[in-house]
């Protein structure tokens, strides 16, 4: 018996997880994205619970794409970068809106990369790109595996190049990613994939 239900039309998206050294790594990637970059990017960067939204504002001022702190229930728009607020987990709903949560820390972190990545894997399925950057714990490894299992594209910063190698190393060992790249190469790859997806959707 065939299943009669219709599948949802999924959008393309990028999720990035980072910790120690993440500020500079993220800055390098986000500020190098060209104007009109059309994929949404959701970021979980480990940060002190009482910090303000400085990082989003600072990146926004330096970038050609819009960067903002994620708000609850906010619809995901193409080409916008959303950063998880300090002391909240960021989750992706399957209707492509954002949810925030104050549930327990995971891997000692809130926001946790695993929480973001796992929810994003359900929502975006094979149309998701997951990126694990520099960091000093194991957060993100299981999440990246979930993205891979759902057929998404997985990228890990080369641990040898990362300011803190533990997080990319853990992701590399757990998820066996599609690409292990330097920061410059990651930016190039994201732009290349964005072009590819754009071509796919205009051919439909």
């Amino acid at each position, binding site marked *: 018996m065939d299943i009669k*239900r219709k*599948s949802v039309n999924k959008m393309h998206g990028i999720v990035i997880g980072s910790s120690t050294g993440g500020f500079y790594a993220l800055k390098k990637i986000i500020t190098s994205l060209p104007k009109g970059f059309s994929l949404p990017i959701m970021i979980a960067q480990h940060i002190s619970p*009482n910090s303000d939204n400085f990082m989003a504002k600072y990146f926004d001022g330096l970038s050609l794409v819009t960067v903002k702190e994620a*708000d609850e229930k906010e619809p995901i728009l193409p080409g916008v970068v959303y950063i998880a607020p300090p002391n909240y987990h960021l*989750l992706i709903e*399957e209707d492509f809106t954002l949810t925030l*949560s104050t549930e327990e820390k995971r891997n000692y972190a809130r926001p946790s990369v695993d929480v973001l990545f796992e929810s994003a894997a359900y929502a975006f399925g094979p149309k998701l790109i997951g990126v694990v950057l520099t960091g000093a714990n194991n957060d993100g490894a299981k999440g990246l595996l979930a993205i891979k*299992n*759902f*057929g998404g594209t997985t990228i890990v910063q080369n641990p040898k190049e990362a300011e803190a190698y533990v997080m990319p190393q853990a992701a590399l060992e757990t998820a066996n990613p599609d690409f292990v790249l330097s920061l410059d190469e990651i930016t190039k790859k994201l732009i290349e994939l964005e072009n590819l997806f754009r071509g796919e959707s205009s051919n439909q």
Partner: protein
Amino acid sequence: MNLYSDEHNLTVNLEIELLLEAIFQQYGYDFRNYSKAHVKRRLLSRLSTSGLKSISEMQHKVLHEPGFFDQLLRDLSINVTEMFRDPSFYLAIRKEIIPILKTYPFIKVWHAGCSTGEEVYSFAILLKEEGLYNRVQIYATDFNTNVLEIAKKGIYPINRIKEFTANYQQAGGRQSFSDYYMADYNSVIFDQSLKKNIVFAEHNLVTDSVFAEVNIIICRNVLIYFNRDLQDTVFNLFSDSLINGGFLCLGSKETIQFSSKAGLYETVNFQEKLYKKRIV
């Protein structure tokens, strides 16, 4: 079926919908309008440690074992909090709301979704330091009776005191924080006189109605788990419970902006999400 296919994922979503319907029909707790990503995360996490094979199996167990439902109820309600969580929130209350509350002869406070009580005791301490505690009645409510029991006791693990103390100081605390508790080997017990004017009671924001007319409602990091429709229902309930000129205090990432009730309120402090119900 491939466990990681879109098809399987949609089947899991359907199973979750059916489970939530079963829970509502059998136990009266309504999670059907909660954030789907949040509910899914909590249920799949329980599933992975339960030895059950699917959400459908979990539904069978929930319907036939009230004890298991009790555990699931705990999974679905978030009870992670701290004393003086977001210290800047309490500073803003001291500066912008307390002076107005001082003009009232008697003040009723509703702390909705009070969880294990840390933020209730925080507010009680603040009111005491502002000289208001003796003319206040605090209703602290939650739908989860397990957490209310913890809240009533006012006993917390000693390893959290360092964090609580730092928050208290940043929140404009005027005493030494240790004046408010006694330390044991593993725990601290808060000054029992703080409880004098607090009533802890079971109340479900989703299914219960107005129970008092109050001057101030504090409901923080509860609404983020609700969808927009349910948020609106709760904002209705709050608007019916607040006196004109009363205050609504939300979590730092929550807003009344998108609710149909937004027009009833003026913003007192945007950053700290403090609102005042207009005097019409």
